[in-house]
Structure formats: C-alpha cells, structure tokens
C-alpha cells in the first residue's frame, strides 16, 4: 500500500509508470473543447473513451480483413476468424488464465446476465427455489433475476446494505439456504463504488451448492481480476467501459457448467447438426454465440486489453486509489455535499456519487456540462438502491486512467461556482 501526502497532485502525476498526460494524449476525443472549456470526462462508469490504437484496430479490420468468421474458406474469412479467436484467448489470459472455451463473447454485461438467467433458469430453477442478489445491483443484474423468479415461481432474496454502503453480511448464513440455487452480485457497485467481497460470498454460496455469478462491469476495467481466485462460476463484463468498443461483452463460465447448460439465443453457428425434428448443439463457447458476433469489436478489444496491460492493472488500481482518495478528500471539504458509499479508497473504486441538499443532480450535471465537465446524474439504473439510500437521484463522477488531480480540482471548483450560480 502506498503512503503519500494527500492533496499533492505532483505526487499522483509522478506515479511510476503512470503518466496521465501521456495516456491522455492517446485519446483523441479528450483534446476537444466542450462549451468553450477543456473536456473533462468523468463519466467513465457509464462508458470509457477509446485510445487511437483501438479506433485504428476497428478501422483496420474493416479496411483489410472484414469477413464472416468460422464459415468461409477464403483468406479474409480465415484472417477474421483467427483474429477473433486470438482475442478470445487474450481475454482468457486477462481474467486469470482460464480456458478460451470458457470465454463467451456477448453483446455486453446485460446480454451475459440475460443468457444466464435463461440458461440457468431452464436447467436449475423450479418453484420455491431461491435466488440471492444484493440491494446495490444495477438493473442489468437485477431485472433478469426478477423476471426469472416470476417465470419459475422462485423466491428472490437480497443482501441488504449498511448505512456506509457496504453489503451487510451479518445474516448471510440465513440468506443463503439449501434452496439457494443462484447467488448474483456486483463485483463493484456502479453507484457506491463499493468493492464487494466476492470470494467470501462465493465460498458461502458454494457451501450450499449455489451457482455464483459476479457482475464485473465496474470492476474488470479498473483492477486485476482473476475469476478463479474470486471463486465465481460466471463473470460478466463489458468492453466499452474498458477502452473497447460498444456492443461487446464477455461472459466467463466454468467449463463443466457451460457444457451442461442449454443455449440462450439459437440460430446459425451455435449448432452442429440441424434436422426439422432434431438439433445438436455446437461445442462451447460457440453454442452460446448464435449468429454473426460483433467481430470488429472483439478484435479491437484485444488491442484495448493490450493497452490496459501495458499500463498494468495493478498500476491502474493504485492510480485510482490515489485519485479517489484525493477526490473524496476534496469533495468532503465542500460544506453539506453528501458522498454516497464508503469513504475509504482502499475498499472502493473510482465511481463517486454525491448529492447536494439544495441542487438536483440534473441541475448539477447541466451546470458542470457548461464547464466542459461530463458527469452522470440520475438513478444510475439502480432504483432499488436509490430507495434504500433515500435518494431520487445522485450525481456521479467516475474516474479512469486519463483523469488526474487537475480534473478533480476543476470539478470541485465548478461545484463551488454552481452554488453561487443557483444561490441556494
């Protein structure tokens, strides 16, 4: 762990191997002005920006190698297939060295969880079974389970949160019962920033024979992830929040489970033999990749992962701990500004939600936008969590590799100016 003086941006910028200015220069979109100000992009939990190399990888695919994969026997099809499968292997290494067959390319985290809610639901869930989620889930890891519970007359339970925005595990042993078939939770909360003790919960779930799923949409972009060490059966995340293209996600699943599960989407590519009265499935992972996948996206995602790992996921996590600590410290000094979630940067990520007692998050967002600062305002697709927090909405600033203390300073300054502007 680093010990360093607070409020010292020079220290943050001199992080060994972490040159924010150099990184920033790799992202063409960040050099623009918005409303007459330098763009300060603090909406990374919604979607990250893309470095030039990723944009180039997409263009290169369409300029040189575009063809459908796994089918054609011509040169372009072979190149495209090989690059697509190469990316799958790259992802497998990125999440802890799993088998490439355990990596399914999806449309995103939402698509991954929907696949699971259908395939696991068909295979394992019957009336009276229990599904355990948490109170802090994003709708992507909530609505599919609500729907599954309704479909199968199963019971949906939830782990509550403490007032500090952590999971309240006091009654975990009562919440996970012999009837619990699925435990699904966010690795990191998109609202509170909380990093949840996934491995502890996975162990408790497995003791009772449950299947454990982590929604890694907010964690995978920001910290080293080893799905085996986490002990989860499934892990879903999205490429676009980690420098990759939109429309692509990854679902990791344990091989034995993937082999027994029925497919979700059916059609081309996911089959072995098709008759009018009988169909056999392709092997994994293809069984779960019906139709033409987002080929360009998958190929460019490998470039995004290369970029992240050149910086180093450990370094990224350390940079974000420093910057989050700095931001929370600065924001806490603004009188009456309320920060949601844990305040200790060691146990949370860089998605920082806050509210002003007098100014609605939408007004905050509109005002900050006039200063070139992009944040998110609203319920962040987590309405049950908002109810638990007693808020209708929050403002959220979320940081990434190209953000620095200057960006945080600009945010703080703009909030002060906003209060004068609204005069409340």
């Amino acid at each position, binding site marked *: 762990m680093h010990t360093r003086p607070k409020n010292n941006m020079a220290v943050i910028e001199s992080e060994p191997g972490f040159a924010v200015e150099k990184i920033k220069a790799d992202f063409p979109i960040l050099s623009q002005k918005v*409303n*007459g100000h330098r763009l300060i992009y603090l909406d990374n939990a919604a979607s990250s920006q893309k470095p030039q190399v990723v944009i180039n990888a997409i263009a290169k695919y369409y300029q040189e190698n575009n063809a459908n994969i796994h089918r054609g026997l011509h040169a372009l099809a072979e190149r495209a297939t090989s690059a697509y499968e190469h990316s799958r292997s790259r992802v497998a290494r990125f999440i802890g060295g799993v088998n490439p067959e355990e990596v399914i390319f999806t449309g995103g985290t939402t698509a991954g969880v929907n696949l699971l809610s259908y395939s696991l639901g068909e295979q394992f869930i019957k009336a009276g079974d229990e599904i355990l989620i948490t109170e802090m889930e994003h709708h992507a890891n909530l609505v599919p389970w609500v729907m599954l519970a309704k479909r199968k007359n199963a019971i949906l339970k939830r782990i509550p949160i403490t007032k500090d925005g952590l999971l309240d595990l006091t009654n975990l042993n009562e919440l996970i019962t012999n009837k619990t078939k699925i435990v699904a939770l966010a690795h990191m909360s998109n609202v509170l920033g909380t990093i949840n003790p996934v491995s502890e919960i996975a162990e408790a779930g497995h003791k009772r024979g449950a299947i454990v799923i982590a929604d890694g949409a907010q964690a995978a972009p920001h910290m080293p992830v080893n799905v085996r060490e986490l002990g989860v059966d499934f892990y879903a995340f999205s490429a676009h929040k980690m420098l990759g293209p939109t429309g692509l996600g990854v679902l990791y699943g344990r091989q034995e489970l993937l082999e027994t599960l029925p497919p979700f989407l059916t059609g081309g590519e996911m089959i072995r033999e098709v008759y009018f009265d009988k169909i056999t499935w392709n092997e994994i992972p293809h069984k779960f990749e019906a139709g033409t996948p987002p080929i360009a996206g998958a190929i460019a995602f490998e470039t995004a992962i290369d970029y992240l790992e050149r910086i180093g996921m450990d370094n990224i996590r350390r940079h974000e701990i420093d910057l989050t600590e700095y931001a929370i410290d600065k924001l806490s000094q603004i009188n009456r500004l309320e920060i949601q979630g844990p305040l200790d940067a060691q146990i949370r990520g860089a998605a920082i939600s806050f509210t002003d007692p007098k*100014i*609605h*998050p*939408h*007004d905050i967002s*509109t*005002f900050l936008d*006039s200063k070139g600062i992009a944040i998110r*305002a*609203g*319920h962040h697709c987590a309405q049950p969590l*908002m109810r638990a927090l007693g*808020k*209708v*909405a929050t403002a959220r600033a979320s940081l990434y590799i190209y953000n620095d203390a200057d960006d945080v300073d600009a945010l703080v300054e703009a909030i002060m100016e906003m209060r004068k*502007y*609204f*005069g*409340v």
Partner: protein
Amino acid sequence: MSHELDLMYRDVILDHYRSPRGRTPIDKSDFASEGHNPACGDDISLKVALDNGTVKSIYANCRGCAISTASGSIMAEILKGKTIDEAKVLATNVKQMLKGEEHEFTDNVGDIDALEGVKKFPVRIKCALLAWITLLEGIKNFQTGRSQEVAVISTESGDQ
C-alpha cells in the same frame, strides 16, 4: 458563464425555484393528478379547486430539479382565475412551445416565456413539461367525469 445556460436558468426561473408558488395545501379539490419523471425521479402532485368553472386555488407540490420546480410554480401562478378550457389551451401551447412546435398564446402568459430557454437543452425538456402534462391529465379526468380518481401520468408514457 455560458450564454445558453443563462437562457435556461433565467433569473425568473431561479426565483420560482428558490421560492416556489402553489405550495399551500388545499383541503378540497375538484380534481387531482400526479406526474412522474422516471428518468430523474422528479414528481409533482397537483390539486385544483374550482369556483364557478374557474380555477380558485391550486396546489402544485413539485419535488425535483430547478426546471421542473420552476415550471410547476409558474403554472400555479398563472392558472388562477382561468377557466378549465383556458387552462387546457394554455398547457397545450406550453407543450408545443417546449417541443419547438408552432403555438399561439392568446392569453396572459405570466412567466411562461421564461421556460423557452429550456428548448436548447433537449434532455431537460421533460423537466419543464412535467407540470403541464400532469395538469392536462387531471383536466382529462375531470372532463370525462372521473374527477374522483387521481390521474397519474409519466413523462415516459405515450405521446408526451
């Protein structure tokens, strides 16, 4: 400060936001409606009491951003003394104004024109619309003999 920002957050708007009108609860109303904007959690509850076919008192309790609060306050101020039909025409015109459609105010519009700056901020138009579509929903119920029900409307429902 950005000129467009000042066009939306005019002094008149900020004044209504800081001290909104129509916040005195009324005991007896002739119709009531509730509006909700699920995108930002804003909501408004509206009660209207009539006297001889004209608005006698109005309670517009709006919880939300500066724009939806000011819009509800402006509405509460202007509606007093108007007939139901006048209120309906006015609300329809405000809707058209906010959506950039042709409209023609035939009446005293009070501070309504201060809302026009919102047009420059497409994501905020629904904030300004909330109070007015809630009023229209209440009027619809009243005019179709369902005034004992509380009409409920969302900015996300149907053709708003």
